[in-house]
């Protein structure tokens, strides 16, 4: 682990973040946009773990932040999928361009 500098781990997480951004920009399907958001959250987790491990190996703060981010990501994915299913029931499509009407 010590042979790889911290900046290379950060390059990896930056690349993953911008791959997720690219998906968020180009995709118009809600489920694929949700997948892009998951990639972005994972790149943030890699950052937290890498900082924890390289810079402050005697502490555990990065681990806790990663755990909380994972829990919030799980809750967010569940709520997003409930919204997507409800939207599909109303519009018969989950394209974001089609959902242009606010309706309960």
């Amino acid at each position, binding site marked *: 682990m010590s042979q790889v500098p911290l900046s290379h781990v950060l390059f990896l997480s930056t690349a993953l973040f911008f791959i997720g951004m690219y998906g968020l920009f180009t995709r*118009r399907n809600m489920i694929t946009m949700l997948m892009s958001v998951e990639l972005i959250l994972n790149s943030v987790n890699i950052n937290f773990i890498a900082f924890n491990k390289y810079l402050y190996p005697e502490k555990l703060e990065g681990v806790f932040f990663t755990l909380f981010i994972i829990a919030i990501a799980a809750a967010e994915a569940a709520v997003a999928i409930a919204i997507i299913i409800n939207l599909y029931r109303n519009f018969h499509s989950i394209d974001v361009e089609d959902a242009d009407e606010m309706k309960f």
Partner: protein
Amino acid sequence: MSVSAVIFYILSFFILVTGLLAVTSRKIFRSAIWLLFSLTGIAGLYFWLQMEFIAAVQIVVYVGGIVVLIIFSIFLTQQSGKDLPAPVRVRSIFSVLAVCTGFVLTCLLVRGYAFGQAGHVAGGGAGPDASVGNIGAQLLSTSEHGYVLPFEVISILLLAAMIGCIVIAIKTKPENK
């Protein structure tokens, strides 16, 4: 270059390639499967960083939970054999431009910043710290660096998310419509 560094570069190549395929694949089901490979690669990266508990949580929650949920919702809402429509050409060109600009800018910033010159980097003595026992003890401790309050807040959040999902996705009766 040592074996450890080679493993890191192979893992990062795997993560990036499968992530890129996950956001560019035209079949939505294949896209979900590529996302699964990418998340598994990230779990491997956590193993490489000797964070076994986080790697286990990553596999259980992401690979076992979220990807399965995404695949379920694909089957509920899509004809998974059909191709997704291609993105508009102008939009994808400008997305590539924006993403490359951001990537290069962030990489320059990271390269210009001197991380851990104070000698933290050597950090060999991290052996017993990230064990499950330590994580659990600090997560539930009420002393100064304890995390019991965020832990309880997260549990309330999960309960609220569960109830919210049921309320949002519940089927209304046809006579109400």
